[in-house]
Structures are given as C-alpha cells and as structure tokens.
C-alpha cells in the first residue's frame, strides 16, 4: 500500500469531537437501528398486537358491562388494565440487557475506547430504549382509542390523557430501574431475570401482602406508585386507604386495608425510582472495568 492511496484518510482535517448531547443522539440513532433490525422488536410488537387483538375480540363478542358502561370505564378497563404489563414487558425487552449485553457480547469495546463519555453511551442507550418502548405504548394506546371511538364516539375523556402522561413517567422510571440492574450485572440473562422476578413476582407480592398482613402502605414499591395510572381513570379519585372488616366470630374482625397512592405520592415514587436508579446505574457503569 502506497501512502498516496490514503489520500482521503490523510487529508488534514480539523475535526472537533462533538459535544456530549450530539454524541448521545448518535448512540441513540444507532441503538434504534439495532432494535429495528433485531427479531426482539418484532416479537414484542406481535405480543402488543396480540393483546390488543384479544381485547378487541373479547369486547366485541361478549360486550362486557364493565367495559361498555361509560367511556371512562372502557378506558379504565382496557388501557388501565393492561398498560403496566405492556410497559414492564417493553422495559424487559429493551432495557433488560442494554448495558450487560455490552459486556457480555464485547460490543462495548467498540464504543467505550472512543472519545465519548461513558455516561453519553448510557444515556443514549436509555433514550433509544425509551423511544422503542414508547412506540409500543402508543401503538397499544392507538388501538385502545380506536375501539373507544367505535363504541363511544370521538369524545375521549381527559382522564385518559392524564393516565397516558403518568404511564410515560412510569415507562421512563421502569427503564431507568432495569438499566440499573443491567449495569450491575455483566451477564445478560441474570440482569433480565432479576427485572422479570422483581416486576412480575416480588413487587406484586409486596403490594398485595404488605397491606393485608401488616396493614402497611407499600410506599417504597414502584408498582404501587404506578397504581396512579389506573386511579386517575375514575370519576372521582379513590380515597387513600379503605378498611374493610370481616367478622371472624366472637365480636372480632379481620381488617384489611386497601391503599391507593395519592396522585402526588405515585408521581414521587416513580420519580424517586427514576432518579436513584439513574444515578446508581450511571455510577456503576462509569466504574465498571472492561477487563
């Protein structure tokens, strides 16, 4: 190879490495490109469409009273009933191994040794997973609204938009949380497994057991905070705690308290998870060794 074949490469260029915001954009762009070419995105798309199709069919066929009472109950049942599941699924699919995969597959070496901050890589990947998840969420919302318009006309209750905003916050928060776990573990399977276990088993269990066993409010659990997504889909916002007494003979009662987070409380829980996970996840990724 003669030196003169290197014409373009050798051309003196005064290159300035772009600012971090631009670099975050670059990471996001290529991460999305990876998503859209991977099977995983389409698997999730099909799952989202299948859930929507099933709901469409069930409502059209059985015409359940709970759905078709008012437009608010319709959205409460349809959207409120499944959106958190869609969010958790998206977060597991897109965020579960986002960082751990970089270590396990050794792709991290391709990016990390370039003049780019590690935090930019982390944030860029988070934004990409947020966008991909939002696509799922909006698709799910679109089908829900299409059905709602079919049964109740174009007037969509304003509470739905409140719920969508809260769901968006929840999405960001859950992703931030899954990113933390994927930053903590270098093995994809483990980081995915941990988020699956937490969201599908541990958190729902705490949400259910804590109030019924000790009558305490699970204010520290993210899935509890997320209950505001469905709570706003009521004509009047539910009261914070309801005690129901069941007589168990001899004048004794078995008391069960049901909690619903205040709106501010739910938002605060989700924000807290978002911020704490982001700070810890970033900190760990900065310290991590590509050894």
């Amino acid at each position, binding site marked *: *190879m*003669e*030196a003169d*074949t*290197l*014409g*373009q*490469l*050798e*051309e*003196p*260029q005064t*290159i*300035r*490495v*772009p600012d*971090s915001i*631009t*670099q975050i954009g*670059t990471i996001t*762009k*290529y991460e999305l*490109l*990876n998503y859209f*070419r*991977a099977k995983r995105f389409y698997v999730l798309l099909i799952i989202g469409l299948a859930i929507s199709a099933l709901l469409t069919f069930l409502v059209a066929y059985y015409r359940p009273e709970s759905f078709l009472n008012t437009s608010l109950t319709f959205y409460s049942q349809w959207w409120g009933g499944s959106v958190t599941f869609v969010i958790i699924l998206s977060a597991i699919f897109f965020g579960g191994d986002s960082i751990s995969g970089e270590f396990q*597959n*050794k*792709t*991290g*070496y*391709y*990016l*990390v*040794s*370039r*003049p*780019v*901050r*590690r935090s930019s890589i982390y944030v860029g990947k988070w934004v990409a997973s947020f966008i991909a998840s939002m696509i799922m969420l909006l698709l799910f919302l679109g089908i829900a609204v299409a059905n709602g318009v079919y049964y109740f006309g174009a007037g969509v209750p304003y509470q739905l938009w409140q719920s969508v905003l809260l769901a968006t916050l929840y999405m960001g928060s859950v992703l931030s949380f899954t990113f933390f776990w994927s930053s903590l573990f270098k093995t994809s399977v483990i980081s995915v497994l941990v988020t699956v276990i937490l969201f599908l088993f541990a958190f729902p269990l705490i949400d259910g057991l804590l109030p019924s066993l000790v009558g305490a409010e699970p204010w520290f659990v993210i899935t509890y905070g997320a209950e505001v997504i469905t709570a706003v889909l009521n004509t009047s916002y539910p009261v914070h705690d309801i005690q129901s007494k069941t007589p168990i003979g001899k004048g004794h009662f078995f008391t069960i308290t049901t909690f619903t987070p205040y709106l501010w409380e739910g938002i605060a829980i989700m924000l807290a998870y978002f911020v704490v996970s982001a700070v810890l996840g970033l900190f760990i990724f900065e*310290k991590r*060794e*590509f*050894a």
Partner: protein
Amino acid sequence: MTDSSIEAVDLTKNYGKFTALDGLNLRLEGSKCVGFLGPNGAGKTTTLKIFTDLIKPSRGSALINGLEVHGNKKKALENCSALVETPEIYPYMSAREALNLVADLKGLPKSGRKEVIEEAISEVKMEDWIDAKVGKFSKGMKQRINIASTLIGNPAVIFLDEPTTGLDPRGMAEVREIVKSLKKKDRLIFMSSHLLNEVSDVCDEVALIDHGKLLAYGTMDDVTARFTGEEGLADASFSKPVDQDTLDRYILKLDNVISAERVNGKTVRLKFNGGQAAQGEILADLVALKIGLVEFKTAFSKLEDTYMSLIQEGN
C-alpha cells in the same frame, strides 16, 4: 502541530493480589511506530486498556499529550484511535454503518465522509462486503473492520493491540503493510505484539515488557545491541557434513571466531567478535577454505535469544 506524546507514569494494575502491570514508566514522543513487545500475559493489553479508559489503573497515570486519560477521557482521546483486543461490532450493522457510527462520534464532516469510509474499507480490502451485515463476518473480517475504524478521523495517536491476531498469514502481512502505511509525519503509533519479527518488520522502536515490567526501550538496533553486546552469531551451512577435525583445525582458527558448534551435521553456529566487519571477513575466509559453504546468515540475535527465553519461561 506539536508532537504527540503518550506517557505511562508508575502505571500499575492489580487484579486482586496479582500484579498485571508493575510500575510501568514509559514516555513516547514524536512521529514513529513503537512496538510493545512481550510474551502472552506480559501486560500489554492491560496497558493499552488503561490508555483507552477501558480499565482504571490501580496506581500511577496514563497521559496522552499531557492529559490524564482517567478523568479526561473524552478530551484525552480526542485525537486518538484504538483497537484493543477484538471488539465485537453490533451484528445488525453493515460495515459502512459501523464506520459511520465512529465518524459520527468523532464529528467527521458530512462532506467527503462517504469517501473517507470507502477508503478505510478498501484499505482493509473489504470493499465487497461494505454493505453486508457484520454479524455474518468471520473473526478475521471483523478484525479488518475494527482496523478500518481506527483509520477514521486522521488520528494523531493510534493504539493497536495485537492487530494481526485472528488473521490468516496473508491477512497478517496485509495488516502489517497497513500499519506501515499509517506511519507518517505527525503520527505516533503504539502497537503491541508478541511476535518479534512483526515488531522488527513494522516498528521503528521497541518497548520490551514482561511480567508487567519494562525491560528495555529504544530503537530496534539499540535494544538489539544492548542484548547482543559485542558478540555476533551466524549460521554457516555446508554442502556436506562438517567433521570435528575441520571444525577444530580450520573454522575455529579463523580470526575473531570465539566458538563454533554444530547445530546439525551440515550447519555450524559461529560466535564471533568484531561486529559486521568481522562477519564479512569470516564469510570471505570460509569461502576461501573451499569446504563447500552454501549459506551464511546472521543467526538468532541475542535479542531473539533473550525474547525466546522470556516466552519459554512464561509457558
């Protein structure tokens, strides 16, 4: 433009109780290619990983143009490119996209970028695969793309960690040619290798490392001389076996010859004083003896001897 520099100051890396890199002090400055030579496990990758902020030093610092990499990574690596170990490239990207990603990160202007990327790709002879997905590539092909990615943005400092690993002999030769062609004014190349012939073929200077410690640094000739001292070694081969009598009566009697021993029946290894001048005279004398000399060449230098013993010790 001022000369680029890279500097390791008391650079140390511990993995638990094991010291992979032990107080490395090395300053490279100017426009040249420096080979970082050492057997497997010597600490080469560890050093280059610290210079690219893939790992943090346990002690000491790694500086590029006076800037400490750890803590100022983005700025310190601004004008650098690196290939450390064999990174995997995102399998769903094409070779072109993988290089575009680097060009975006480095802020290469859009105009002329297509040409830069195509040239980098053709430099590593991957033109036919430029729009194919990296996931389909063999290890060697991926390594070529990795090398192409280090060419993007006309870097002033290039770190290469065993760039020929994973390549077939032809690929190795091609990569060495590429590295040679990268040598130019205003560029400092630091290339690790466990192959002495690779370093002596490609590099201007050599830094010898083993067990995490620097053994020597200087030009190839300097370092060779340091290990060789005054003595030279040459192998003389003959058309027929050489008997002890010929060895004692003729060959050992030649001027400057210190010792002569048979390597095999037809080859004799000569140790001699007096450098190249003496070597020339010995050759002439051997021819004059008319005992069937067919080949005469410089044997393993002491550097090679030393290096070989390092490798054997390590295994």
